[in-house]
């Protein structure tokens, strides 16, 4: 399988994997650095959208347009539908609990 992949395609696969890794890394950094639940929800969903998005794009490229490749495209689609729903559920729960978003000058929580 792997030897059938041309150099251009291989380069694209590597680029997409690296991009996926980069955005996952950014997202992780954000979860650690940001001050409250709302801002963390922003960046946590970032890992899903572009982190997982680019990684699955790389998988789809590597696997070709059958079976696995097709399913990974569907996976991207589902992540794009479910991820904002989950982020919204977390944020809404926090809001309903009376959790006021962090603003400039507040203490980290």
């Amino acid at each position, binding site marked *: 399988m792997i030897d059938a992949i041309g150099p251009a395609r291989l380069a694209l696969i590597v680029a997409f994997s690296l991009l996926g890794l980069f955005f996952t890394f950014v997202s992780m950094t954000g979860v650690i650095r940001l001050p409250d639940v*709302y801002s963390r929800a*922003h*960046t946590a969903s*970032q890992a899903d959208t572009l982190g997982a998005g680019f990684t699955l794009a790389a998988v789809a490229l590597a696997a070709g347009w059958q079976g696995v490749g097709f399913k990974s495209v569907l996976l991207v689609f589902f992540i*794009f539908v479910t*991820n904002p729903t989950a982020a919204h559920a977390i944020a809404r729960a926090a*809001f309903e609990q009376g959790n006021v978003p962090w603003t400039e000058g507040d203490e980290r929580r």
Partner: protein
Amino acid sequence: MADAGDSAPKRGSVVVPVESTPTLRATVTHLIESAADGEFSSIHFVVFATWRRDDPDTAGREAAVDRLLERVSTWAEADLADVDDADVDDVEVVTAVVGADEYLFGADDYVRELAAYADDHGAETVVLDPEYTPVGNTTLLQPLEFALSNTHLAVREAPVTRPTRRERLRKEATGIRFAATFGLSLAFYLALGDPLYPFDLASGVASAAIVAITLSRISLDANPSISRTPIRLLRGAVYVPALLYEILMSNLVVARVILDPRLPIDPTLNRVRVIVGSGLPITTLANSITLTPGTLTVRARDGNLYVHSLIPWAREGLFDGSLERWTRFVFYGREAARLPTPRERDDVGIFQGPDATEEYPGARSDGGTRGESDAGADGSTAEAVEPNAADADEGVTPE
């Protein structure tokens, strides 16, 4: 049925939420009979609007509701004529559409609108058609009866014969919504499995049937229209690359902010009153906003989206309303997309920070007890809420 003893002096008004159900006809008859017994002097048949007054493209839905209300009043008149009683001469039948000011989400919102209408018209009783389920309210969600029990309104169900479970199932199973949900689920199942393998085929039909029976009324709040759905899907296909581009751009901006050692964030909670239409359009918009890093939909309330923004850049983008415009384009076409931006309409507000334009909304301003003000004032909620007065002697900067 009311007791014979107190029926004579108590001639109040009654509110009846209606939609097109098999038992609606019988419910109308029951109400007219109750009125003839002297229980009610005025009957209000109301329909909840599934649109908001300034939405684009609502003529079709409004016309359907008007037809329903017209049918109800015709029935009521016919029944009044049938009742051979002097008492009914002064029975008043009113029809109305409520809730067209705001988007309604779930049982609580419906009940709030209903209670407000009842107060305005001096009604103390609500009679429910046993088959009545407002849009999106099914047995899986919080039932309307439960939400109604928290109000001062007296609630009862009209004692009419309901169709048997089997009849209802048969009726539902032949509906367009059912067929659409079933077909879509089956197609998806077979796309993952192997359409030629009998086991996949059989289990696919079974699972699609279960999905369609339980969810067809939740997933689709109206029958999909043959003329409109394909063009919406087509416009949706145009929207996806545009959305991906937005996501990529804001991801890069947010990534730079997060990796910046100074962490230059300025998060605020904001409000946008959007014009897109209830149900699927507003869900699409809220999801798109959340998908774009830097903005996060926290709450949809009274037609407002409460959106948390991480940086002012994301907030400005939100107020410029490009996603709102795209959503309108997908659902209503190019005409509707050209409405002014939320900022131009003055439909925006900032709740926090130095640029705040509006008071921070309590968590449950619609009936709860715990608002931001009391949580902050008594300070008992640990470090969760610290008043901004602490700014001055705040020596520690966020790491």
